[in-house]
């Protein structure tokens, strides 16, 4: 038992409550928001050490023993996800100080952000499939409000699509959970993993697996269920776009990885082949969608979709190397993708628009911003020695080692096309001449550091860019942790034993 396991859920709850109590003072809200994220990061770091040194940590909430109570389980995959979400949480909280207006602060931006984090952390930690549904709901309700906060017309349009499709996917999730419970009489994931192979009606198990694939697939935005994402993610303020683009879809990916390594491994030939096809189509459609758009955040939104394909591909390989690549890819992608969103926000502050065609001259006037963009964009496209290169390299290696040549070729091709979209942004927004009309007066005069306080937005971006470079140059230790995590996933008996005791 490890009592600290509840902290990544309890801290955001306490912080959200405090922020709610001090909701009249925006100064207090900001301090509470940032300090809360810092405390969360520290607690996750302590837990990470525990899991890394002593193996999987378990907490039976309320002292109700598994499989009857709700169990919190932290294995290496959970910890890696928790760590990256805590880091991004801190980055976003700092960035929000400048990006989020007073009106949104007054309507509870900071409490909602922490509740969202609580939902995300809960989904990473829970060892109970119904409890996971509950955390998904917590996360979704907070994200609905964050998306609609501000009430502008296109925000409501985007939020409506997001709400309807996500409620539908939650409903499917609930159906799947009900069917699992009907078949096995348990909801504890470790217990399920033991009982599912004993179910006689294997066809039904595969059906439930497909229900889960569709439900989590909607949340992770895989082909052909991704269309809601580019329709909604470009509407809210940038800080919110970055949280959504960085974290929320990855929760779907995490759930897919969890259930398709722990629960549904009976008919791999069927389920994982479908996953592989889906991965290929997701990569290609996402990157083609990005190529056809000229709005900064829409391009990034389509790229989220295409990158999800890589992670699903690693999962579909179902080998240690493939899973390692997928996990590493998730970590790298959260850094690179959120950072690009954050940069788009700074570019919008400077040029007054997200439309690439109305931008220009950013390289000439803001070389530091251009460098930061270049680092993140190259990382996303997979340039050595940045983080994306190692992520793609390990996936390609995994693909070649099991002789999946076609999908590997697709993955490499999509990497090239990613570079094409990033070059498009670079050529128009950064390199092109300053457009004649429509440029705000402060363009070129507003410094990144100093007057105007723009540094509050720039410093977080620099930190993330630094992390990308760090991961790129010191990839080996992180890759080893990812490999350990992958081996834990492929050997569920460790997980089961940690939760239910020796069998």
């Amino acid at each position: 038992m490890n009592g600290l396991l509840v902290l990544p859920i309890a801290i955001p709850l306490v912080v959200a409550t405090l922020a709610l109590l001090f909701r009249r003072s925006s100064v207090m809200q900001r301090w509470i928001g940032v300090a809360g994220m810092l405390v969360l990061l520290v607690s996750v770091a302590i837990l990470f050490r525990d899991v890394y040194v002593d193996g999987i940590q378990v907490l039976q909430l309320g002292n109700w023993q598994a499989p009857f109570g709700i169990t919190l389980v932290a294995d290496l995959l959970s910890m890696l996800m928790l760590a990256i979400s805590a880091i991004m949480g801190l980055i976003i909280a700092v960035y929000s100080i400048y990006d989020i207006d007073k009106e949104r602060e007054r309507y509870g931006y900071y409490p909602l952000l922490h509740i969202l984090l609580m939902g995300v952390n809960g989904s990473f930690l829970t060892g109970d499939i119904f409890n996971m549904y509950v955390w998904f709901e917590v996360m979704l309700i907070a994200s609905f409000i964050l998306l609609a906060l501000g009430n502008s017309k296109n925000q409501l349009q985007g939020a409506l699509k997001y709400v309807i499709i996500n409620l539908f996917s939650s409903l499917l999730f609930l159906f799947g959970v009900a069917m699992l419970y009907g078949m096995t009489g348990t909801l504890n994931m470790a217990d399920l993993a033991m009982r599912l192979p004993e179910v006689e009606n294997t066809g039904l198990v595969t059906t439930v697996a497909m229900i889960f694939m569709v439900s989590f697939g909607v949340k992770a935005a895989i082909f052909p269920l991704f269309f809601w994402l580019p329709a909604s993610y470009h509407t809210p303020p940038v800080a919110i776009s970055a949280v959504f683009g960085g974290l929320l879809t990855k929760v779907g990916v995490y759930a897919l990885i969890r259930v398709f390594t722990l629960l549904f491994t009976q008919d791999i030939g069927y389920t994982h082949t479908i996953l592989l096809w889906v991965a290929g189509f997701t990569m290609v459609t996402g990157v083609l969608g990005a190529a056809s758009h000229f709005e900064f955040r829409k391009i990034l939104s389509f790229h989220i979709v295409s990158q999800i394909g890589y992670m699903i591909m690693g999962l579909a390989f179902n080998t240690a190397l493939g899973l390692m690549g997928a996990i590493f890819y998730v970590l790298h992608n959260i850094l690179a993708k959120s950072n690009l969103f954050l940069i788009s926000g700074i570019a919008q502050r400077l040029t007054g628009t997200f439309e690439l065609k109305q931008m220009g001259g950013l390289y000439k006037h803001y070389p530091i911003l251009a460098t930061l963009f270049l680092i993140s964009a190259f990382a996303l496209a997979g340039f050595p020695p940045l983080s994306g290169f190692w992520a793609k390299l390990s996936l390609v290696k995994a693909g070649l080692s099991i002789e999946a040549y076609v999908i590997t070729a697709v993955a490499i091709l999509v990497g090239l096309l990613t570079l094409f979209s990033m070059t498009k942004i670079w050529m128009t927004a950064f390199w092109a001449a300053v457009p004649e009309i429509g440029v705000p007066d402060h363009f070129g005069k507003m410094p990144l550091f100093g007057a105007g306080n723009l540094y509050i937005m720039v410093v977080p971006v620099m930190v993330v860019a630094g992390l990308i470079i760090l991961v790129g140059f010191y990839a080996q230790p992180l890759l080893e942790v990812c490999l350990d995590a992958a081996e834990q996933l492929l050997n569920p008996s460790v997980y089961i034993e940690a939760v239910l005791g020796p069998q």
Partner: protein
Amino acid sequence: MNSLILHTATRLMIGIIVLFSLFLFFRGHDEPGGGFIGGLVGAGAFTLYAIAFGSEATRAILRIDPITLIALGLVSLVISGIIPMFTFEPFLTGKWLFLELGESEFKLSTPLIFDIGVYLCVLGFILAVIFSLEEVK
């Protein structure tokens, strides 16, 4: 709403309804009742008052802002979860305290604190919704 019957009835009813909500609340745990249903009935009392006298007057008798009520509710939820952690038991473990006072026995517990939190959250949430619907321009 400007109706003498409603005004008079509301003044009489509100106390009874609040008492009934507290009765439901304390009846909970072993019998049907508890924080959620108690909170709903309590919110019903203040909603009735808001219909009769307007949200301004209801805020005045409530004294605490509904959103603060939600926050206080969350605080007690957290407290009930943290108490068992001081004796190195998992978060949310139920701790009980039995008090003998003369003939009768009182039971105090962390689930009671949890239920107070639920009561406050439900009350605060419903009133926040009702007030913002009433005060919309």
